[in-house]
C-alpha cells in the first residue's frame, strides 16, 4: 500500500470518527472540540490535494475564528437552557440514521459509476511550481478571473459584520443608558438607605450631603453620606 494512501486513511478515519463525535457527544463543548479535530484533519486532506493555502485558511478561519465564536455563544447561553440529548425521540433518531444510510448508498453508487470527466486545466504541478507555489498561483487566479467576485465577497463580509452587531444588540438598549439617580450610603454594608428610600426620589430639590460631624439616629450610629449622583461621591467627574 503506498504511503499517501496510508496517510489519507489515517486522516479520513480520524476525521470521520471526530465527526461522529460531534453528533454523539452530549456536552456541546465536547462537540466543539470534536469539530476542531475534524477540521484539522480536513486541513491535512487539503494538503494532500496540493491546496496548502486552503489548508491554512481552513485552520485559521474554521478552527480559529468560527469555533471561538461558537464557544463564546455557548458560554453566553445559560446551561439550563440547553436541551438534553439522551431522552426520548426514538422515531426522530431512527429516521435520521435511515435517511443517512440511504443517502450514503445513493452517493456511493453515483461515485463508483461516475462517467463525466472534466476538461483538463492548465494548472499542472509544473505550472504551479513555475509561478512559485500554490499560494502564488491561487492569487493569480483570484486577482484575474475572479476579481469581481472577490470584491463582492468583501461586501458580503461587511454586511455580515453589521448584521451580526445589529442582531446581537440587546433589544431594549435605551433603558440601560438612562442616567442613574438616587442615593447610595457607604455607611451600610449593602448600600441601602431605608430613610432615603422611604422619602422617595427628589427631583427639584438637590440632596445636600450630610455634615461630617452629624450622625443621624436612623443610620444606627454610622455616618450617612447622601449624594445625588453615585459618581459624585467617588470623584469620577
Amino acid at each position, binding site marked *: 500500500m503506498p504511503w*499517501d494512501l496510508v496517510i489519507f486513511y489515517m486522516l479520513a478515519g480520524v476525521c470521520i470518527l471526530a465527526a461522529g463525535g*460531534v453528533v454523539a457527544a452530549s456536552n456541546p463543548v465536547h462537540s466543539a472540540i470534536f469539530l476542531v479535530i475534524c477540521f484539522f484533519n480536513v486541513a491535512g486532506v487539503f494538503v494532500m490535494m496540493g491546496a496548502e493555502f486552503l489548508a491554512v485558511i481552513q485552520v485559521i478561519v474554521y478552527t480559529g475564528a468560527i469555533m471561538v465564536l461558537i464557544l463564546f455563544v455557548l458560554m453566553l447561553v445559560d446551561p439550563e437552557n*440547553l436541551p438534553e440529548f439522551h431522552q426520548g425521540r426514538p422515531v426522530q433518531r431512527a429516521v435520521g440514521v435511515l*435517511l443517512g444510510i440511504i443517502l450514503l448508498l445513493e452517493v456511493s453508487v453515483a461515485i463508483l459509476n461516475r462517467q463525466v470527466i472534466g476538461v483538463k486545466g492548465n494548472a499542472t504541478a509544473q505550472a504551479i511550481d513555475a509561478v512559485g507555489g500554490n499560494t502564488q498561483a*491561487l492569487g493569480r*487566479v483570484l486577482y484575474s478571473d*475572479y476579481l469581481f467576485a472577490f470584491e463582492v465577497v468583501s461586501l458580503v*463580509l461587511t454586511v455580515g459584520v453589521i448584521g451580526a452587531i*445589529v442582531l446581537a444588540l440587546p433589544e431594549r438598549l435605551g433603558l440601560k443608558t438612562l442616567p442613574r439617580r438616587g442615593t447610595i450610603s457607604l455607611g451600610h454594608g449593602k448600600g441601602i438607605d431605608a430613610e432615603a428610600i422611604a422619602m422617595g426620589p427628589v427631583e427639584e430639590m438637590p440632596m445636600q450631603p450630610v455634615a461630617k460631624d452629624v450622625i443621624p439616629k436612623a443610620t444606627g450610629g454610622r455616618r450617612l453620606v447622601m449624594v445625588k449622583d453615585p459618581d459624585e461621591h467617588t470623584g469620577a467627574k
Partner: protein
Amino acid sequence: MGELGVEHFLFLSAALFIIGMMGVLIRRNLLIIFMCVEMMVTAANISLVAFGWENDSLDGQAFVLFAVAVAAAEAAVGLAIILALSRRVHSVDVDEFNTLKD
C-alpha cells in the same frame, strides 16, 4: 482503488456531509445543528478541491476560498440570531421555537 484517486476524497466528502446531515436531523440543540451545518459546508469544499485536483485546475480552490468567506459571514450572522433567540425564548432547543404555530 489501489492508488489515491479522486474517489477517496469524494467518499470522505460524502461521509462528512451525511454525518452532518444526520446531526441536523437528530439533534435538537441549535448550536450543535449549527456545527453540523459547518461540517456539511466543509464536506462540499473537499469535493470542490478534489475535482480541481483531478483536473489540474485552480478554479475549485478559488470557489472554496469564496465559500469559506461566505461561511464566516454566515457564522457571524447565524450565531447572532441564535443569541437573540436564546435571549427571547430562553432556550436553544429547536422544538421551543414554535411561535408561529401557537
